[in-house]
């Protein structure tokens, strides 16, 4: 085996990256847990927040609104424990893409709603302007976290890593 100068740098990279991954994973877990917890207390309001986007009939929005907080909390728990991290990251990314699309379409159609991302939601009182820009930037930031985990799902202190040989030791 030939040792090149490059391997030293790569070894350091592979030592640090899983720890960065842990931070990213816990950060995204916190996002989902907070988002879910803020909605779970009033599922009817969550349904109204979904309906406010006017992209689906109220009866469907009602179901989506009731299910969403529970799915968000479950995603948060999966990421917190580091169970099926790549899958959880993929579902997170998919959800966030839907949220970004929803907010963008609300913006384009000129609706005046609160995104309902962390509780509240629905129509804004007259005279209040929506803050779609910051909401979108925030969601894109979360999407970046999910993207990181999708590419590098192997993180330290996770159930995924327990009892399984580290992937880098195999090659």
């Amino acid at each position: 085996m030939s040792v090149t100068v490059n391997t030293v740098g790569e070894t350091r990279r592979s030592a640090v990256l899983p720890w960065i991954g842990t931070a990213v994973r816990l950060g995204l877990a916190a996002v989902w847990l907070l988002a879910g917890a803020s909605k779970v207390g009033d599922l009817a309001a969550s349904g109204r927040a979904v309906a406010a986007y006017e992209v689906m009939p109220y009866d469907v929005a009602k179901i989506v609104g009731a299910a969403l907080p529970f799915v968000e909390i479950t995603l948060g728990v999966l990421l917190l424990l580091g169970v099926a991290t790549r899958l959880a990251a993929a579902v997170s990314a998919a959800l966030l893409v839907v949220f970004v699309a929803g907010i963008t379409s609300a913006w384009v159609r000129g609706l005046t709603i609160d995104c309902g991302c962390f509780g509240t939601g629905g129509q804004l009182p007259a005279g209040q302007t929506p803050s779609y820009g910051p909401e979108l930037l925030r969601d894109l930031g979360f999407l970046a976290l999910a993207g990181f985990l999708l590419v590098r799902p192997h993180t330290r202190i996770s159930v995924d890593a327990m009892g399984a040989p580290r992937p880098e030791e195999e090659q």
Partner: protein
Amino acid sequence: MSSRAGQKRAAKVVRQQMARERRRQRTLWTSVLAVAALVIAGMIGWGVFASQRADEYHAPAGATADGSGIAVGTGPVTVDIYEDFLCPACRQFETQVGPVLDQLVADGRIRVVHHPVAYLDRASTTGYSSRASAAAGCAADGGRYGEYSSALFERQPAEGGAGLSTDELIRIGGGVGLDEDTFGTCIRDGRFRSWTEHVTDLASERGIRGTPTVFVDGQPVQNSADAIRAAIDATGR
């Protein structure tokens, strides 16, 4: 090249392959479990929501036939008002437009249907919107909806706090001429809580996204006195 070294290498390859296969199996099964957990969580959410909604409701006296609100007045033009007792814009609406509507009711021109929705339960620590709306149902049952509603808006608590206590809700009722015993029992028993849910659900279904929202003869109208008066005049009645 010794054959022993070759055997060792072969054994290592086999071990690696087996380890890889185990890892693949593990990933597969955790993924299946995770997907199942997400699906089940979603179904639990729907189940919890469905079980929270009462099938039956008991509407107070003065309620419309569909139980969606409390009717005041008998004029030919119907004005629907969707409001939440915790919503500051509703309080503003009540102080500015309320007297105009009262006059129109007194003149026999309109019938006002108040829909006290509970949209802002999360904006207080005690679900004040629901509690106030159910209390207003009790007031309607005692024949004092308008008076009680005005008094509640006058004493509207700030968003984010605990709202008015049950005792305060009862005392305010006494202040507008309701019998505090009957009224108090009605509130404490939660007699109209399921009605509040019914009112809120019907409003959500109708597409009411915020409060206050006003309709004149079924048509959405801006919530200003001028706009409402113009819409009433336009009906020609």
